């Protein structure tokens, strides 16, 4: 099996078949999520089924869609995939479902979005050679994965012990799952930064941060 052969952990890059698989699966998740956002929320569960089926149909019928998306936007990150799955899970199970924790506040904090925005800006400036350090190359190093593993453990333990809002548990779980998937597959590119954050998710983080951080603060100041 080409994929199994390519899952040799000593190889830094994922095999081509795996790249193609994740490219299709993550875009399917993103297109499904986009579809769900456009539909009225009369039935959460059926919304996801319908949109996933429609997205799958689009990708199968118009076979140029996936290459066109890949040509411009490449493959979204594993974090985007996990986030889409987490949203779908929450939608299907209903807003009352908590991963664990005592509070029912599941909307991600603007501070988390701000952190994502900040990390993305660092990576962008690094890509354009405007920082004195080479951040992106760190994404090939094993120690980054260990660091993520420890931090996600620390984060969730803190959230559990201090009974923090449930979004902590959900965000830490997404991060851990994205890291775990990367450890197992090296998808989508072999660099863990590409597994954690893609420019699309980063742009979406801007929108969320502005919407729930800046605008709501302005609104509450005026109220």
């Amino acid at each position, binding site marked *: 099996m080409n994929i199994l052969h390519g899952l040799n952990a000593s190889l830094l890059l994922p095999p081509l078949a795996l790249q193609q698989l994740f490219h299709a699966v993550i875009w399917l998740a993103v297109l499904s999520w986009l579809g769900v956002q456009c539909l009225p929320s009369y039935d959460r569960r059926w919304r996801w089924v319908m949109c996933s089926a429609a997205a799958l149909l689009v990708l199968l019928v118009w076979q140029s869609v996936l290459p066109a998306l890949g040509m411009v936007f490449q493959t979204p990150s594993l974090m985007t995939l996990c986030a889409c799955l987490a949203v779908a899970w929450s939608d299907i199970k209903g807003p009352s479902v908590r*991963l664990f924790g005592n509070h029912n506040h599941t909307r991600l904090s603007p501070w988390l979005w701000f952190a994502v925005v900040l990390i993305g800006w660092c990576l962008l400036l690094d890509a354009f050679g405007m920082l004195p350090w080479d951040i992106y190359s760190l994404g090939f190093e094993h120690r980054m994965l260990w660091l993520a593993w420890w931090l996600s453990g620390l984060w969730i333990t803190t959230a559990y012990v201090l009974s923090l809002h449930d979004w902590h548990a959900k965000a830490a*779980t997404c991060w851990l799952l994205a890291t775990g998937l990367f*450890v197992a597959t090296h998808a989508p590119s072999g660099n863990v930064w590409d597994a954690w954050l893609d420019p699309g998710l980063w742009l979406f983080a801007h929108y969320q941060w502005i919407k729930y951080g800046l605008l709501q603060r302005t609104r509450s100041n005026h109220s």
Partner: protein
Amino acid sequence: MRKDWLPPSLRPVVWLLVWLLVGVALLIRPQQINPIGRPAALPSSSPPSGAVNTWVLEAQGMIGQPKEAPAAHASNLVALPDHPSYSLAAFWFAGSKEARPDVRIAMSLWSRQQQTWTPPVWVVDRHTVGAALGKGILHIGNPVAWLDRQQRLHLFVVGTGLGGWAAARVLHVRQSTAATANSPLPAFEVVGQLPLGWFWNLSHLVRHSPMPLADGGMVLPLHFELGGHYPLFAWFSPDGEFQGLRRLTHIHQALQPAPVAVDGNHWLAYLRTLGPRDKLQVLSSTDAGQHWQLQPELALSQRDSAVASLRLPSGEWMLARNPLERVRTQLVMHHSQDGLNWSPPLMLAEGGSGSEYSYPSLRWSDDRLWVSYTHLRQGIAWQRWRAVPLVKASP
């Protein structure tokens, strides 16, 4: 009310198990030894002879151009020392014009027996590569070839998305079938796309030949060119697997590095520089590519045109460039004993205003120096040079 499949009290336990599972996967995953810092292959086990050579042009001509392709550019030579029939392979891109959708990668082989280039064949096109990647490719170009320890040819090709060369990515294809007597031309399969940057992997290009490492691997020189320009180096295993990356973001306005090894750990890389600079710039590393510093510029004029460098088995350095004074209407070659002090130029090609002789490639094969370059953007010219000892150095 729907019943949860997992009781809330068990969720922390499941989370802990997943966390431990990821930890175990990390533990059993073999740690990569830092690939950066491996010594370079030296051209010969014997020290430089000390003999000063003069260079004699032995033969020259044009490599056949595919009939349906009036334009050609960016050739790259690779030696095939163990091939029974062919000693060199030349790759270049050809089509109606640079950065057009019909541009493909052509290949021709130098036959030892017939002492001529084989008719060109197409080996890579954007449709095949795009279909294999699952990502659309608008144009391809700049092939760079390398031979791994299994004698498989690897090709690194620039592929663009929306936005032309500034939106380029570097694609990796590899020979899939061994050449046989009946079928001497290799077929290629797509390996993937090199991960070189976070921002949609945009604007990374390849141009110069790789520098071989002592263990059989290689260092591939690359560059970034959207807004600012800086060089990069990618490390590959002896089997051609991507292993690591060093991005020289502190070097500005320099691209297309042309690396050569002074010794195992001391490397130089000549740079295509951009205005207002007008002299050839050189980078130096004394720890096998882990850290690079810009050296004082050389006394050779150059601006915004590709350079090529090569260390010969004799220990001698060779360099080809377009002098700034003649832009790309003149292509010259120099030789050196230390990589820093260069001989007077040897003329490779020159023409009138508007002509172009550019993008040289240098390769040593069958005890001769081979040069290929773009000829008027209409074809690929080649030359073969022979070294003639001139003066013996004093003991």
